[in-house]
Structures are given as structure tokens and as C-alpha cells.
């Protein structure tokens, strides 16, 4: 902890969890899709649903999907900017069951059929957790470069991934494995200390038994500049 955890962040109000956290969920979801969002179905749960309208959670999330940062003064007008950027969105409520009260489910698609389903939670002070990707559990903060691999549940995939990372001198900070059923679909989530190069991600996605590779880099991608 340092002084700027106490004085700061500079953010658009009114709430670090319901506004700034929602922007961050949008930012990370956009990066996980990997291409600009064309269509977004947004389902708010719990406290997000009960108090989100008053906190501007809806506008904050859309702003995040457009790539705006938490202190971008355009956040209140995000719906208009979404229209200008050609991003279609639909907002509604949902009961996701026994999850964090500040949770949201997102169905995102890009121009060329790219699709992702994400459940994420704003866990306080603007920090967030991604808790589900494409129907399988996950648990990461978006503070590290994160590799998410969907694969068939069969031997060898963990070795393939970890040897590739070792070859690129990338250190693994955390690693999680989940599967839908024995021999079914599995997901491997790796938080890394260094960025994973594009070529390595492409190589991985072509391997037999690997269904999809999603990568969350920390580098800022070009969003609409604040004018």
C-alpha cells in the first residue's frame, strides 16, 4: 500500500465499486473479446441491479466496453458514444444465484463472429474479479497479463502451455484448472508476470485439442481518445 491508495484514484463518481469498478469490468471484458465490441448484452445482478441505475453502473459499464478509463469525463454520456461507435447494447436484470452482490454477466460479440461470455464482480474500492468465462469458472483480477485457454479435458495441455511460457521466459504468478466434466471441456487460467507475445498465442490456438485462447494484456489499446 502507498499514499495513492488513500489519496486517489481520480475517478468519475459516484462510487468506486458501482461506477469505477464497472468501468474496469468493461475495460477487461473488451480486452478479453480481443476486438472492438459490436454487440453487448449486459445482465446486472444483486446490488448492481438494485442500485446500478442511481450509481450510473449502466453507463460506466458501456463506457468501459468502449475503452474509456475510470476518470474519463465522457462516462455519463457513454450511451451516446456507443451509438457513435456503432456499438449496440442491451441492459437487463438477472439472478445469477449465489455470487458476489456486485456481479454482471456479459455476452459480447465482435464484427467477425468473435464471441465471449463473461461473469465478473466488483469486489470493493474499484477492484474487480472475473469469475466465469464461457460458462466455466475463473478467478482473476485483470491486474496481471492473463491467459485463458479452453481445451478438451485430455492429458498434455498443461505441459504444452507451461513449456511454451517457460521457453518465452514468462513466469506464472497463479494457475487455475477447471473442467465441465471428465473428458469434457476444460479451462486453464494463468496469471503471468510478463506479457505473452502474439505469436505464442497464435501457436497455442492451433494445437490439437485447444478450442479457444483468450489473452488479457496490460498494454493500453487505442480507444476513442478523449477530446
Amino acid at each position, binding site marked *: *500500500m*502507498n*499514499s*495513492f*491508495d*488513500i*489519496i*486517489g*484514484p*481520480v*475517478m*468519475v*463518481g*459516484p*462510487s*468506486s465499486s458501482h*461506477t*469505477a469498478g464497472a468501468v474496469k469490468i468493461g475495460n477487461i471484458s473488451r480486452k478479453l473479446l480481443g476486438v472492438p465490441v459490436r454487440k453487448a448484452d449486459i445482465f*446486472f445482478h444483486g*446490488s448492481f*441491479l*438494485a*442500485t*446500478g*441505475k*442511481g*450509481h*450510473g453502473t*449502466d*453507463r460506466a459499464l458501456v463506457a468501459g466496453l468502449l475503452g474509456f478509463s475510470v*476518470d474519463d*469525463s465522457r*462516462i*455519463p454520456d457513454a450511451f451516446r458514444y456507443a451509438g457513435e461507435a456503432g456499438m449496440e447494447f442491451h*441492459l*437487463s*436484470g438477472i439472478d445469477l444465484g449465489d455470487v458476489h452482490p456486485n456481479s454482471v454477466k456479459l455476452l459480447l460479440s465482435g464484427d467477425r463472429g468473435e464471441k465471449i461470455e463473461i461473469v465478473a464482480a466488483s469486489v*470493493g*474500492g474499484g477492484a474487480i474479479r472475473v469469475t466465469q468465462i464461457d460458462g466455466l469458472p475463473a478467478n482473476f483480477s485483470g491486474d496481471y497479463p492473463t491467459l485463458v485457454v479452453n481445451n478438451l479435458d485430455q492429458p498434455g495441455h498443461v505441459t504444452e502451455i507451461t513449456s511454451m511460457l517457460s521457453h518465452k521466459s514468462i513466469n506464472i504468478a497463479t494457475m487455475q484448472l477447471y473442467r465441465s466434466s471428465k473428458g469434457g471441456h476444460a479451462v486453464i487460467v494463468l496469471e503471468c508476470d510478463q506479457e505473452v507475445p502474439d505469436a505464442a498465442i497464435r501457436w497455442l490456438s492451433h494445437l490439437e485439442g485447444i478450442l479457444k485462447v483468450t489473452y488479457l494484456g496490460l498494454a493500453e489499446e487505442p480507444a476513442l481518445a478523449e477530446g
Partner: protein
Amino acid sequence: MYQSFQEIMDIEKETGKKFWEIVRDNDCREMEITAEEAFHRMQAMYEAMRDADNSYDPSLSSASGLVGGDGEKLAAARRQGSLLCGPFLGLVMEKAVKMGESNACMRRIVAAPTAGSCGVLPAVFLSLEEQKGYPEEEMVKALYVSAGIGGIIAHRASVSGAAGGCQAEIGAASAMAAGSVAFLLGGDAEAIAHAAALAMKNLLGLACDPVAGLVEVPCVKRNVIGAVNALTSADLANAGIRSRIPPDEVFDAMRTVGKMLPEDLRETGKGGLAATPTGIAFRESLKGF
């Protein structure tokens, strides 16, 4: 961050460094930056506070319609000279309400320590700079004092309404501002610690009971009491008055009080003002998308 006032008072005695320098030096070590870089980063926070104050828009109201325009009413009363509290405290009150309203109306603010309590520090700091002629450099140093106090509170108690009630938001901001003002008045680490403790003692146990769960009622107006309480506490400390309970123990008490607060009074929007018939009616009218 330091975990006790005692630690900082001891370092001050040993090294002769001031409270703000001790906090800044710790940042430099943790963030691996130079003293100059650290100062500029804090200066940027102060400038963001000033920008937020300058960009107040009296025509805005919050999404719920519960908040907006009150800062301008205070400004008008201050200009007419009709405020009993006088021009200086009047300005402090006005700036506190304005910043709270700006936050509720989705303007850019600086969370200090939280968004709900974002009006306390700027109200005190900017009013002192404008009316008492403190240079910006001193205000940036004073912000470091605030940060050091906030760090101690975060360690010993909490700076989150959901964890510790409003004492952890408005209360924490008020203690931070009180210590900073004690510093600006020439106080040493002991005076700073006691100013912070005196401020917190007045707000111990304050419920976090926001209507409809929104950072609006009573949050916006509570920024006023946080700011004014900081000034009176700093004056007490500067006059040589000491908290009979040592400052570190006061913040330990804050922790135990926070733990004793029922969940309904910790940012759930279920108890207190939120549970009044009017509060419930507002909540029902704002549900869904």
C-alpha cells in the same frame, strides 16, 4: 504505510524529519520513485481536486434526482453575508457540498479516502489556500500528512463504509484533514496525531445508511460536518489540547466500534435513514434498468 502514530512520532524524534517527509520517504521506497516524482504525483492529486472544485455545475442533478444545486444555495447565502458561520467556514461548507454533489452527478473527483467522502479534504485545503494564503507547496505536503493518517486508519481500522460504517469514510476523511490542518498551523507529529484523534472521537460509530444504497443522502451533506469537524479539532490540538485517549488507541476503538455495527448500518442501504418510509419509497422508485 506506517501502522501507528507512535512509529511516526518516534522517527520524527530520531531524525528530525517532518511527518509529511516520513510518509513521502516511505512511498519512495515502496514505489521505487524519487522524492521529486513522489511530490509531483501528490501535486497532481491536489490539482485534480482543484479542477473538480472549479468544474462544479449547479444545473446538474443526480440520476435519482435526490442531489444537486445545494452548493449554489450556500454560495448565494455566503455572498449575501447571511451565514452565521462567517465567510471562511461558509466557503468550507460550500466546497464540501459542491464536491459531494459533483461526485453524485458523475463528475470527475478524487477519492480521499473514498468517493463518498471526497468533499472533506478539498473543502478544507482549497478554502485554506484561497482565504488564508497558504502556497500550493504547503498544501501538497499537507496532503502527504493526510495520506499517512489514512494509512494508519486503514491498518488499525478501515476506510470502507461497508466494513466500518461512515466513521470509516467521513470520519476517516475528517481525521486526515484535521491532522493536515494541524500541520499547516505549525504542529509537530504529536499535534497532528492528536488533531486526527480528536476529530475521530467526534464521529465514532457514525452509521453508513445511504438512502436507496446511493452515495447521495446523507453522504453529500455529511462532507460538511467532516470538514468543519476537522477545523475545530485542529484548533483544539493547536491550542495544546490533547486527546486523553492516545491516538493509536482511538483508532483501535474505531475498529472495534466498526465491527460492532450491524450490517444494516454498513453501506447496505437497509438501516437508519434508508429504512425510513421516505427512504424506502425512494428505493422502490429507483429499481431496475
